[in-house]
């Protein structure tokens, strides 16, 4: 795979769709940060699964931060991603960190200035939002999430196996109408949003 520069990664993520997929694949499989994150988690008694989970969530967090316009662009992207992964580790495995190397971690945490501007939803919050959106159905959820990540209608059609972009466009419209209805019928979603915006 051709290496991406930081600017190319940022542009691909902002453009979304297949370009985002490729940049994400590069970050996940070929980023120099990968080994650093795995070593970081292993050295703090995390398992392989923990390390994978943290690295994947770091990438998600980076993507959402760039797409949400919250990425400030100071320093290298790899360092930023590493910082995000470390913060995610602290957040999720605070207890382990306290037990193992509390003082050392605390010093790092105090010195570290690049906190992620975009904090991922916690697993329980993701589940809560997902259940609020249950009435949408799996297909609609996927269509709308792909659209949110700037996939073109052609890409959505190909991803979901539709015969044409016209089908994808129509499906997206129906799903959006359904989502608007759900928002009307479930004021708790508005309360959920208030926590984040």
């Amino acid at each position: 795979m051709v290496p991406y520069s930081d600017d190319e990664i940022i542009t691909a993520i902002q453009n979304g769709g297949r370009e985002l997929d490729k940049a994400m694949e590069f970050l996940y499989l070929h980023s120099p940060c990968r080994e650093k994150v795995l070593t970081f988690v292993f050295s703090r008694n995390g398992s392989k699964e923990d390390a994978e989970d943290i690295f994947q969530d770091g990438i998600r967090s980076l993507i959402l931060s760039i797409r949400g316009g919250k990425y400030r662009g100071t320093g290298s992207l790899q360092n930023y991603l590493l910082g995000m992964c470390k913060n995610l580790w602290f957040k999720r495995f605070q207890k382990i960190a306290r037990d193992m190397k509390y003082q050392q971690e605390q010093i790092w945490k105090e010195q570290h200035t690049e906190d992620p501007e975009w904090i991922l939803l916690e697993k329980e919050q993701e589940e809560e939002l997902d259940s609020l959106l249950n009435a949408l159905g799996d297909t609609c959820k996927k269509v709308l999430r792909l659209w949110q990540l700037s996939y073109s209608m052609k890409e959505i059609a190909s991803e979901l196996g539709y015969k044409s972009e016209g089908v994808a466009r129509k499906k997206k419209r129906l799903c959006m109408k359904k989502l608007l209805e759900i928002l009307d019928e479930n004021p708790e979603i508005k309360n959920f949003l208030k926590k984040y915006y």
Partner: protein
Amino acid sequence: MKTDDYYLDLIEKYIERKDDQETQVKFEEELRKDQTLANMYQKYLEAEKVLELSAGQLLKEKLQAMQAQNQPKASIPLWRYGLLAAAVVALIIMIAGLGWKGDQVSREEMLETYIQAYAAGPSRSMGEKEGDWEMAAQAYSLKDYSAAIQLFNQVKPENPRFIESRFFMGNAAVLAGEYSVAIPALKQVIEAKDIRFSNAAQWYLVLATFGMGNETESQTLAKKILNDPGHPYRDISRDFLHDLDAL
């Protein structure tokens, strides 16, 4: 009368064409004058925020798929390559067959657009003797619709959940493309007038008759839904009829 589609078209054009000064000015003027548009735009922005928060889940799924693909794979026995080759040949024959039926493509596209699983899914088992029900519900949730059809079909008329089982059998049959199985089951649900399922059964019957190629009946059934002001499937039926006219 301005429809939801009219407003959504305006909003999406406004959002997508940020560089088009004329569209921007026109929309903003309209926004000040038309309260319905203002309300719809507000809701649309909320929907975008919901999707922004929830898009992370799709990224996670994609990353997990990458992880699975990059794990060492067990070697595939040679006979499986034979099966794979046979499947590819069958697929090529199927695609070639479809190519001759040019008019089916747009009908299939319509079915792809409108057919979707019943979001609520079957309710869970409540008694010890409901093992079959549990299996049927599980097959449905795992999208094994052929198994779900068979298992729901085993529920006897004396079972208090008989109508529910007919509904999910009909629904699973629509999802599996077995429209001739779906139609009698859904009709039974409509005749039973069970308020929990009769509205949804009417909608799935529209799809099943359309899937069977009976467009006239499908149109009549969709119009019946459209003429019922409180019907929860009214809006989607309107879209369906619109697409049917355009076929």
